[in-house]
């Protein structure tokens, strides 16, 4: 079934058992993002220590794609340096916007590669990117704060 390319096992697994879905009470930055076309919402808290992403926690409502995507993101980016995290972010965004033209680099994207099928469903790309946009936004805020501090 064509649809199985979109809804890979990994995605449904993360959807049913989301990772880090409980907002930590301490954080360097906290953001709230919405997908205005469908109403999906996400809160995301981020901690960056010595240029390393040490914690990403979140809460939200949304479809399997948006929920799985942020869950996968937390698994993938925690422990990475901010530079590494941005490289992965760029890689993921490029994959989403590829209209299926590129396959994505599994060595970089790991589980997030399962979202490759989304790129063929233009209306769902925003779902997959919701958590990633929130992370990017939070990281910029956290870094701005650390520069001030």
């Amino acid at each position: 079934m064509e649809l199985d390319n979109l809804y890979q096992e990994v995605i449904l697994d993360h959807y049913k058992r989301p990772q880090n879905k409980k907002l930590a009470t301490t954080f360097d930055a906290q953001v709230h993002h919405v997908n205005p076309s469908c109403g999906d919402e996400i809160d995301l808290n981020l901690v960056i220590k010595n240029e390393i992403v040490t914690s990403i926690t979140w809460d939200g409502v949304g479809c399997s794609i948006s929920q799985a995507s942020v869950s996968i993101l937390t698994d993938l980016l925690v422990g990475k340096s901010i530079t590494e995290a941005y490289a992965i972010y760029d890689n993921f965004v490029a994959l989403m916007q590829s209209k299926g033209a590129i396959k994505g680099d599994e060595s970089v994207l790991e589980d997030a590669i399962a979202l490759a099928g989304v790129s063929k469903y233009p209306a769902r790309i925003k779902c997959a990117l919701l958590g990633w946009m929130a992370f990017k936004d939070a990281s910029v805020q956290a870094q701005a704060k650390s520069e001030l501090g």
Partner: protein
Amino acid sequence: MTLDPSVIRKDFPIFDRTIRDGKKLVYLDSGATSQKPNSVIDAESDFYRNHNAAAHRGAHQLAEEATGAIESAREVVANFLGGETDEIVFTKSSTEALNLLAYSIGNAPMGNLFHLKPGDEIVVSEMEHHANLIPWQQLAKRTGTVMKWFEVNETGRLDLSNIEGVITERTKIVALTHQSNVLGTIIPLSEIAKRTHAVGAIFILDACQSVPHMPVNVKALDVDFLVFSGHKTVGPTGIGVLWGRANLLNHLPPFLFGGSMIETVTMTDATWAPAPRKFEAGVPNMAQIVGLEAALNYLSDIGMENIHQHEIALTKYTLDKLQEIDQLRIVGPTDTNSRGSAISFTLGQIHPHDLGQFLDSAGIAVRTGHHCAWPLTRKMGVPATTRASLYLYNDESDIDALVAATLGAQKYFA
């Protein structure tokens, strides 16, 4: 007379195509936009091929023909709604028509009957489409007026228990949707219009979801302004209609300024042509106006009452079948009393976006999300819904396909 969707579908060329590798198109998204019959598509093409020129702006034969075409369309629209020809204003959409009203009212100087002053009140409801909510919010902010609204109860009906507290002597405008695009609810219009006029306020009807689906007569409804969109009425995109009582249109200041809406112009000032011209600045959306005429003629030939009866029967069938599905919750009235054919629902823990995607993979087009009525979805306690919305070309086989695929989705996402 009953109506045969399988015959009607032959008029709509889109049903000749297939979806997702060969699946039959089951189009249940007419609440967002309707499909178009050949007669509408051909009317637009024919205008371009044979009569295209700037209406109202030339003494040559093509310009005469173009002018004749849009003015005859104005008559058809007027007859369709039971209004007068000069009471029909062409806009690009309902959204523009509602914004026209909000901006024009905002332009009314002191002494004009539309003038708003701080403390005046504007009444809407919790089931408004954003197009009939945000323009009034913004007008309220600009003028210092107060927004009030009717609440929606858990069965999806307007709560009129406090109608005298909502519509008061301070109320200047009551702007309501005739039929909710999410719940399907048809509002108890006459009671509200009566109260509105009793306090001397103006009643504006968002008829986007009623004009395409049932007979609507502006005189019988006793409203002051009404808007609807061509594209939801088997007509072209890019065309909407504002109807207003002649004497009110005369007092209402214009909205868009430019060519063809003026009487005289100097470098520093201008005066206006009479309505409807004063509201139609610029070269009109002529081909779309002509297409709308073809659309209303198409619907009239079938008969709005026939369409309405067909939709009631099919809505009943849909509500019954859907409610047999485990964990499916209808968001909105579950019977067909004062109810149209927009049917929203949730399905257990399955997110509407996922359900919609699954239905799409089976060739079924529905809409998911907040349907541009976000405060309403919030009020109904759901983040989003799946909506099937019906029209004259739908039949029971479409609903059977919807039900089967919905059951399939339950297995898939289990």
